[in-house]
């Protein structure tokens, strides 16, 4: 989905609020929320693709207004409610307050048929896929051409794995794109390397 989370290349944001002594956590609840995600994974209640997608399904105003750990918690609690591990009513009764959840999802999809195998140096083009469900292809590479630099081990295909759709694991390719190909005359010169699933790629 072309969601609010897909921020790469979006314009209008100001300076990074950087500090050399930057913190990871700012409150105890952030640490405990982070740990609850790990607990849910250990219990087999969710996988990382479902979890990322649940965050992406947050209503955009909520996504933008929430901090990182609030987004994380919203994704977690949404999945636990959807999967019936807890009920929203039970949680709201304990909290004595409303618990905002992400919006419902759309279906996923299996791997692309007829996927090509690539090697370092191959020129590849990113398919122009528009899907309603989860996808790990940042929109800024859609339809763009780059060069394969390396192949990573096979991973579950996110577009399927986030939705309980059966699919084969598939390799990801480290593809280098020139920033001027991604944003002609609109970017600082650089090579942008993206880990791209095989299903998203065509020979160029």
């Amino acid at each position: 989905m072309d969601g609010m989370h897909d921020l790469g290349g979006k314009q209008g944001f100001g300076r990074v609020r950087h500090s050399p002594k930057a913190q990871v956590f700012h409150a105890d609840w952030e640490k405990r929320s982070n740990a609850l995600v790990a607990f849910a994974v250990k219990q087999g209640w969710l996988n990382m693709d479902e979890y990322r997608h649940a965050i992406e399904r947050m209503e955009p105003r909520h996504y933008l207004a929430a901090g990182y750990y609030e987004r994380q918690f919203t994704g977690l609690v949404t999945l636990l409610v959807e999967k019936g591990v807890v009920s929203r009513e039970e949680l709201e009764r304990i909290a004595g307050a409303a618990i905002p959840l992400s919006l419902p999802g759309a279906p996923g999809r299996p791997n692309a048929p007829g996927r090509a195998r690539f090697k370092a140096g191959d020129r590849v083009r990113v398919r122009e896929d528009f899907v309603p469900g989860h996808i790990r292809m940042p929109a800024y590479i859609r339809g763009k051409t780059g060069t394969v630099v390396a192949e990573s081990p096979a991973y579950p295909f996110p577009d399927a794995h986030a939705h309980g759709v059966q699919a084969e694991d598939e390799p990801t390719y480290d593809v280098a794109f020139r920033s001027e190909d991604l944003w002609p005359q609109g970017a600082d010169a650089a090579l942008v390397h993206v880990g791209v699933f095989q299903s998203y790629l065509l020979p160029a």
Partner: protein
Amino acid sequence: MSANDQRNIPATPDRLVAALEGALESRGLGAKSFVDAHVRTATEDWVPQNGARVVAKAWSDPAFRARLLKNGKDAVAELGLSLPAHHRHLVVLENTPKVHNVICCTQCSCTAYTVIGLPPDWYKDFEYRARVVRESRSVLREMGLDLAPDIEIKVWDTSADTRYMVLPARPANTAGWSEEKLASIVTKDAMIGVARL
């Protein structure tokens, strides 16, 4: 109080997280003790000193450096470091006098957190995620790293479950230093690639 009344009360995140933890604890699955242990691990074990040891060894031991660049996950295991099962690959990116690497995750905030530490707040902020892929040189300059024009920038967007860390260039004034002393100067920022040492 009816459910509708409850939904009008503004929630604070600490209350919501406590509610979920309480609900899961009541299932008898050991949620609270798991969370307590995990918080200790996240704050005490997943620290940038891990990656700093890796960098210091790579600077000191050319054979280790070669193994690290070939297969990061296997090489860091030599130092007792591991990655979660779903991070199947650790790619180590070597800075040179002419190439500078910087990592990010534009869609969420993925990192090799067991090695370089959990991501700092600014890494997860929208400004860094939106801008660093498109305005890399400008963003780095704003963050205090003004790279010479002849240094090529490579930005690595963590869009799959492969993880990255930057191997910073060894500062010239460190000849003869022990690995321990070398590790003491390696920062999380340098392993993300927003600083050079």
